[in-house]
C-alpha cells in the first residue's frame, strides 16, 4: 500500500505506544460487539433429551419463565453467566471471587457483566456523538471556508458565540429540560461540540480552495457541492480524523461525568460513570466497585488519546519534510 494513507500507516506502525492504543481500542470494540456472547444468563447450547437448543440465539417457548441455570442436561454457558440486570439479593457487595470475577454491586448484580455492557454505552455514545458533531462541523466549516466573505464572517461569529458557552453546564441545562436519556446525551454532546471541527475544516478549505486542482475543476464547470465534497474535503479529512479521535475520548469522559452526576443513562442500563457513582457509598470497604470502572475509564481515554496522537504524527507531513 502506498500513497498518502500508505505512508501514514508506515509511520504510525513505528509508534509502539500508538499501536498499543489502537489494539486496546479494537479490543474494546470487540467486547462491545460481543457483549451478549461474553456475559449472558442464557447458555450457548443446551443438550436435553438428545435435542440441541441454542437459547442464546433463539427464544424457545418451552424455556419461557424457566431458570436455565437449573435445567438438567448439558449446558455450555458464556464465560460470565450473568446478564447485566440480573440481581441476587443473597450476594450483595461480594468481593471478586471465582463465582463473580469482578465481584457484585449493591443489588447483587455481577460487576463483570455490567462493565462489559458498559463498554457498549461508552463506545456507542462516543461514536454517535462525535459522528453528529463531525458532520455538523464539516458542513459549517466547509461553507465558511469555501465561500469566504460575509458567509465566513457570519459563521465565524456563530462559532465564537457557541464556543463561549461552558459546554458541560449547557449540557446539564439541556438535559434538565429534555429529560435524561442516552439519546439526549448523544444529541446534546453532538450539537455543542462541533465548533473545533468547523474551525479546522474552515482553515483547510481556505488553504485548499486556491489550489490548482480546485481551479481546474471549477474551469471544467463543476458545481460547488461537487468541488466541496469530491475535491477539497478528502484532502481536509486528515486533521478532522485526529480531532475526532480526541473527541471520542472527551465524549466518553463527558458521558461518564454525566452518569456520575446522575444525568446519564436511565437505570438499569449500565454505564461506567453510573457504576462509579453508585459505588460512592461503599468506597471504604468495596474497592472493586470504584477501582474497576475508574480504571476502565482511564484505560479507554488514554488509549484514544495516544491513538489520536500517533495518528496526528503519522499524517502530518510537515514533520517529515
Amino acid at each position, binding site marked *: 500500500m502506498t500513497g498518502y494513507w500508505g505512508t501514514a500507516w508506515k509511520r504510525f506502525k513505528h509508534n509502539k505506544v500508538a499501536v498499543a492504543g489502537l489494539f486496546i481500542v479494537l479490543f474494546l470494540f470487540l467486547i462491545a460487539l460481543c457483549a451478549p456472547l461474553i456475559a449472558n444468563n442464557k447458555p450457548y447450547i443446551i443438550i436435553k433429551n438428545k435435542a440441541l437448543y441454542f437459547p442464546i440465539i433463539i*427464544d424457545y*417457548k418451552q424455556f*419461557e*419463565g424457566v431458570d436455565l441455570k437449573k435445567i438438567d442436561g448439558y449446558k455450555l454457558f458464556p464465560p460470565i453467566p450473568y446478564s447485566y*440486570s*440480573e*440481581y441476587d*439479593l*443473597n450476594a*450483595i457487595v461480594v468481593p471478586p471471587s471465582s463465582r463473580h470475577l469482578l465481584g457484585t454491586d*449493591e*443489588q*447483587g448484580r455481577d460487576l463483570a457483566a455490567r462493565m462489559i455492557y458498559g463498554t457498549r454505552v461508552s463506545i456507542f455514545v462516543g461514536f454517535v456523538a462525535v459522528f453528529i458533531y463531525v458532520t455538523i462541523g464539516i458542513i459549517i466549516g466547509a461553507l465558511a471556508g469555501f465561500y469566504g466573505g460575509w458567509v465566513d464572517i457570519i459563521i465565524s461569529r456563530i462559532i465564537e458565540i457557541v464556543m463561549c458557552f461552558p459546554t458541560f453546564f449547557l449540557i446539564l441545562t439541556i438535559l*434538565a429540560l429534555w*429529560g*435524561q436519556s442516552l439519546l439526549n446525551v448523544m444529541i446534546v454532546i453532538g450539537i455543542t461540540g462541533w465548533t*473545533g471541527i468547523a*474551525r*479546522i475544516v474552515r*482553515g483547510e478549505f481556505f488553504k485548499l480552495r486556491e489550489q490548482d486542482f480546485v481551479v481546474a475543476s471549477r474551469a471544467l464547470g463543476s458545481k460547488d457541492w461537487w468541488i466541496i465534497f469530491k475535491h477539497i474535503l478528502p484532502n481536509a479529512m486528515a*486533521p478532522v480524523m*485526529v*480531532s475526532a479521535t*480526541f473527541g471520542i*475520548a*472527551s465524549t466518553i*469522559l463527558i458521558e461518564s461525568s454525566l452518569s456520575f452526576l*446522575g444525568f446519564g443513562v*436511565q*437505570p*438499569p442500563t449500565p454505564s461506567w460513570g453510573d457504576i*462509579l457513582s*453508585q459505588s*460512592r*457509598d*461503599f*468506597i*471504604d*470497604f468495596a*474497592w472493586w466497585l*470504584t*477501582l474497576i470502572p*475508574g*480504571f476502565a*475509564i*482511564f484505560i479507554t*481515554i*488514554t488509549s484514544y*488519546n495516544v491513538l*489520536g*496522537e500517533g495518528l*496526528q504524527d503519522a499524517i502530518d507531513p510537515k514533520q517529515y519534510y
Partner: protein
Amino acid sequence: MNYRQNKKYYLKVVLTQFCSVPYYMVMVALLFCFSCSRFESVRDSHTLYVHLSAEPGHLNPITSTEAIASSINTYIYETLLDRDYDTLELKPLLASHWEISPDKLHYRFYLKKNIRWSDGKPFTADDIVYSFHVIKDPEVANAPLKVYYIDVVSVKKISPYIVEFTYSRPYFLALEICGSIPVVPKHIFDDGTDFNTHKNNRHPIGTGPYIFSKWETGKRIELELNPLYWGNKPDIKKVIYKVIPEPSVALQMLKKGEIDVMSLRPIQWVRQTDSKHFKEAFYRFTYYQPYYSYIGWNAKNLLFNDKNVRKALTMLINRQAILDSLLFGLGMVVTGPFYIYDKYYNHDIQPLPYDPVKAKELLKNAGWVDSDGDGILDRGGTKFSFTFTITSASKFAERLATILKEDFAKVGIQMDINRYEWAVFVNKIDKRDFDAVTLGWSLSWEGDPYQLWHSSEVKAGSNFCYFINREADEIIEKARKEFDVNKRIALYRRFHEIIHDEQPYTFLYCTPALVAVSKRFSNVIVHKRGLNYVEWKVTGN
C-alpha cells in the same frame, strides 16, 4: 492549530486525573475539598452542627410542605399548643389555657402575655387571625394545609390575648388543628407584598428559642439563641445546619467532628458506623416515627384500574427479601395507611404474600395473557407496559426499581424506569403525569385520612393515585365527626381493610430513624417524638 491545543489539554487532564494517583482517590479528595475547604478555623463548643441532606426552598411555615423546612422551623416558630415529647398529649405553648364549647364548635384560646416576636414586637391575637386569613386565602399556595381548615368558619379576636376558632361542624381533630395553626408575625408579612414570595420567607421571625441569623444558599443556615425568648434558654447557643447532599461525604465529616448530628442510611448504620471506635465518639439512636413508604399505582391508567391487577403487582414484589437485603432488615413491612404503632392500625391484616404463581393467575383472570407470543402480556391489543417514575434523590428507589423491572419481566410485564430531579419529579406528580411512583409519607401523630384518600382530593389535593371508593369516603366523613376514640378505631380499622383490599398503593415499609449524635453533648434523650436540641447540654469540645 486548534486541535493541537486540544490534545495537550486532554493529555494534561488525563495525567493529573488518572495517572498520578488512583482515580477513586482523586474523586474522594475532590469531593472532600469541595465540602471542607471553607470550614471555619475556630469552632465554638456551644454550637451544634446539624447535617441537612437537602436545602429547603424557604422557611415559611404556612406555605412550606418540606419535612426539612419544618424540622428547622420547630426551633424558630411556635404554635398555640404543642404535643408532649413523651406522652404526645397536647399541652400549652403560646396559649396558657383553652376552652371548648359544649357543642364542640367553638375553641377559645387564652394567650400568654409576655411573649414577643424576636424583633421585639408583642405577640397578640392579631397575629393568629392574620395567619388564619392567609391560610384560607386562595392566592396563597398551600393546598395540603388548607384541607385541614375547610370546616373552620372564622377566627375571632375577642381581646388582644383571647382568640376564638369557630367550626361549622364538629371535627375530632379540631383542637389539634387550631392548636397547631402555624403563626407568622402580622407586622412583618402584612405589608402589601405577595405572601408566596415575601422576602421574609427566607428570613423568618418567630417566637421560638432560636432566631434566624444567616443563610448561605447551598451551604448553611444558621440559628442563634433568641435573647427575648420567654421560656427556658437552651444550653446550645448556636445551631448551624450544613447542606451536604452526598451521604458518604457527610459521614466523613461526621467522623472528623465537623458535624454533630446526622441521619444515617441503613448501609452506614450497619457497615460503616458499627465500630467500637465510632461508638466511643457518637451515640447511635434508632427509633420509629409515623412514616411509611409505598408504590402508588395511578388508577387513571387503564392498566391499574382493576384491584386484582394491583393485588397481583403487590404479590410480585418480594417485600421482605428487599427489606432484608437493601435496607439490611431495618424496618417492617406495612399493610395500610396508618402508622404501624398507631391505635388505628389494623394488625389483623396480613401483608399479601410474595407469590408470583398466584399473581400470574390473578392477571390471567383479569384478562392479561400473552396472546401474540412476544413475551409481554396483553389484553385487547394493549400491552402491559408502563413507566416507573423515580427521583434521583432516592438511591433506594432506584435499587427497588431495577429489582422490580427484572421480576416483572419474568411474568411478562414490561416496566421502564424514568429517573427525574426532585423538582421535576414533584411537578410530574402534581400534574398526575405518571403510571407508577414510589414515595414515602410522614404521618402526623393523630391522623385523618381525608387529605390522602377522600375522593374530593383527586383533582388538586394529595390523592394523586385516583383512589375513589364510596364506603371509604363515608367512613372518612363519619370519623371526622366521631369523638369517641373506640368508635373511631373501629371505623379506621375497617377503612384499613378497604385500603388493603383495593391496594391503591403497594405499601412497603415503616423504616426507623437512624441518627448519630456526637458525645460532646449530654442529656440527649430519645423521646417518642424524637430528639429535641433544646434540652441538650454541652459537655465537651
